């Protein structure tokens, strides 16, 4: 029974901070003076159930558990009285960062509620459904043939650059790697080169291969469609 109640609550938590705020409210704790041992114990109870359910965001809850335990251990450390008397600034409540996180999150929870209370289109209010006009009437904004040319050029130039943009460094690296390999073994098979590599890496290797071929450093030979690609070095070794 208790388990069920826990499950129900866990469903509606938006993350570890939300769970902590719930525990603080339920226990009527002072957010600026959280009994850390107490709340950690309760939090870990919930964490056990979370582990059993196996939720997607478990890692985030675990990270918070670690933080709570770290704070708890710091709180247990005896303090040097001299230090306390001397440096007021130096002495920090180990809970300080947690309180800050909770306050910031609470602020945005509040902001989310405010947003939710605004009248929303298609939930609280509706506009007039305006009939679509006849084709041919449309006027278009700021359009010139040059706009069109630019769009076309952009589209074309974007095509090969998508992959390159993601791992620019890698292409350069792979080109170097490929050149060195070719220098050593004169020829190699593309499948051997990319074996066990991720899809992205395979793509980057392929780009590197194109680059090497374009520079005239190697020849690529493919027997048939979808067949393996034999890469041969064109650089005369020793020169």
């Amino acid at each position, binding site marked *: 029974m208790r388990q069920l109640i826990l499950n129900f609550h866990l469903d509606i938590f938006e993350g570890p901070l939300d769970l902590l705020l719930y525990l603080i409210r339920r226990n009527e704790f002072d957010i600026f003076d959280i009994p850390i041992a107490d709340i950690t114990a309760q939090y870990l109870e919930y964490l056990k159930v979370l582990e059993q359910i196996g939720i997607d965001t478990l890692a985030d809850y675990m990270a918070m558990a670690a933080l709570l335990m770290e704070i708890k251990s710091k709180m247990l450390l005896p303090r040097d009285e001299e230090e306390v008397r001397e440096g007021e600034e130096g002495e920090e409540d180990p809970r300080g960062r947690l309180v800050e996180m909770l306050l910031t999150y609470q602020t945005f929870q509040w902001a989310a509620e405010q947003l939710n209370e605004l009248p929303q289109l298609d939930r609280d209010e509706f506009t007039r*459904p305006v009939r679509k006009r006849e084709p041919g009437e449309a006027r278009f904004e700021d359009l010139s043939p040059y706009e069109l040319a630019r769009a076309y050029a*952009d*589209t074309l130039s974007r095509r090969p650059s998508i992959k390159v943009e993601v791992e620019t460094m890698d292409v350069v690296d792979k080109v170097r790697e490929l050149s060195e390999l070719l220098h050593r073994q004169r020829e190699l098979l593309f499948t051997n080169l990319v074996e066990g590599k991720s899809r992205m890496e395979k793509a980057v290797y392929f780009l590197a291969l194109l680059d090497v*071929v374009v520079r005239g450093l190697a020849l690529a030979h*493919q027997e048939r469609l979808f067949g393996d690609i034999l890469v041969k070095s064109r650089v005369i070794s020793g020169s």
Partner: protein
Amino acid sequence: MEADIRPIVEAILFASEDPVTPESLKKVFPALTLEELVRVLEDLFLEYEHAKGRGFHIRKVKGGYQFRTKPVYSQWVLKYQEAKPQKLSRAALEVLAIIAYRQPITRPEIENIRGVDSSGALKSLIEKNLVKTSGRKDVPGRPLMYVTTSRFLEVFGLNSLEDLPPLKEEEIKERAAEAGALQSLFSNDKKE
């Protein structure tokens, strides 16, 4: 009771595209009779009929009631709507550009260039009368081919397709290099 539901019926009328019939209101107000609902609609109708200085009124259409702007103001409404420029989405602009420079072209070919599904953009261009179909390509599947319309020339202020701006020099070179890379791959293939 009837007085209370009047603004509700007005809101329903306001937000619906088709004429609102007394019958269709029954599902919202099951406790009211058809006669009562007719009376509410008629009251609203008469209220707008007698109101002065309003830009719209209620018309009885197809057995229902519908808000419409008054015909005397239609020229202004049209003038506003025509003056108000429409926007082409980025996707639509790209698809339009590809068709303009590569016509006639099929949808698979367009999608091959853009790398993403382009059916939505294509549909909106057809609706806007900027693009139309023109026969089918003689390849397996016989896909439809698309070309630009004369309205397209009009919108972009072009005399003919030959007036389309040439692509930038670097752009052409880049494309040539790209093609060249693939070609050399191809020719090496042949050589050995």
